[in-house]
């Protein structure tokens, strides 16, 4: 079951689940209804996803132009920031930031690369290029 009458969401997988929503009516009753989110909620959620997709696209362009390493692209794709990426992968923050440079990234040891692949849940070949 899904509500396709509301075309705010750009991703077709979004907005498929029903949730419990409370409301207060004029007679003083708090009512629970199970239903899809309304238009206002869709607008603000879509705004966040637009923002993330913009960032991902920007990172992709920069990787293809050779300005940053693919780590940046996969970081943005996983909605991470450098600090969370460092916490998640167990590589210290200044090293993570260093690995954003293509020159440094290209001469990394496999041991370090494997830490990134485990974090992003991808294979080594995927890490080295942007699909």
């Amino acid at each position, binding site marked *: 079951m899904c509500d396709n009458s509301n075309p705010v969401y750009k*991703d077709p997988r979004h907005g498929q*689940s029903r949730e*419990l929503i*409370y409301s207060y009516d004029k007679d003083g009753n*708090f009512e629970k209804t199970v239903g899809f*989110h309304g238009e206002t909620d869709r607008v603000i959620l879509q705004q*966040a996803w637009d*923002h993330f997709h913009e960032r991902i696209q920007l990172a992709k362009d920069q990787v293809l132009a050779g300005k940053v390493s693919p780590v940046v692209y996969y970081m943005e794709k996983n909605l991470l*920031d450098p600090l*969370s990426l460092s916490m998640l992968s167990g590589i210290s923050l200044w090293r993570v930031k260093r690995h954003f440079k293509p020159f440094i990234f290209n001469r990394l040891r496999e041991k370090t690369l494997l830490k990134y692949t485990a974090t992003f849940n991808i294979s080594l070949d995927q890490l080295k290029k942007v699909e």
Partner: protein
Amino acid sequence: MNSVNTVLNFTHHQAGHCESGATSNLFGFYGHELSEPMAFGIGNGLYFSYIPFLKVQYAPMISFRNLPNVVFKRSAGYLGVDATVIKKFKDPDAAMLALDRNLEKGIPTGMQVGCFNLTFFPPEYRMHYNMHNIVCFGKEGDNYLISDTVMETPQHLSYEDLKRVRYAKGPFAPNGKMYWINSIPQTLDLKSAIRKGIKKTVYEMTGIPFPLVGVKGLRFMARDLKKWPKKHGNEKASFYLGQILRMNEDFGTGGAGFRFIYGAFLKESGTFLHNDELLEASDLMGKTANQWRAFTYVGARNCRNRSKPEEDYGMLGEQLLEIADMEEKVYQKIAKIKL
């Protein structure tokens, strides 16, 4: 990994707020009917904090809920229930083993998890938000049975996925936190629990001497909101405003930053204790919640067309200040009620 095959007789109810929903479901398993608003009100789910210098997903941190695990711990404490909370496991495998042992003993166990890797979660919500709560109530082979109050029905999650979400990283990382109920007394003393819960909530919303928490925090944010377009530019201001609205309306709140649920709690306790003042307070809370919803409506219009004149933010700030005044009246009113 040992192979346990147990499915407990656990009834899943959908709820507005993940943790109070989980608490209410856990109480239900032990034969006590504790509705979601009741668990929410007693456990001090209502809260507000605004931390502009801490950024979550590129926007200032705004929270309409209390710290993780407060609702469960306080509602269990105030009701005199014997409950265990394990804050942290260093080793992920040990955390999973502890969960398996609990299931073997027949104890449904609540856990704090991160949302991003929850496979069954609605994709539009899968951001890095680490304060979500789920209850595990069974295991079939490698799959765990999960009751997530956002979803309509119980869900399945594999061993690896569960381990991943229990060790999500970032602000408020769960670190494998788990909690469960050991035993429940035959009768619960609801009256004293309601009194304690209300007193604590009033303190947290009005009494904390720190400008970023409670009603003061709301006013602080309202004043900041007016400055955003000048300080950050329209684009970023709109995104920050969207963050307030998302936290307020979407992330498992049941709407209006839990004000509806708290109003429902005041109403329910008013009918339970035959107290008219509580009923009046619940009416005020309901009206405040409707104001919140109106605020969301205006704000979302702003988010849709990003370049809007700056007066819009001034008006939104005024609206927030008004809401703060309304809320403060409710707290002052319920603080005076003698129960």
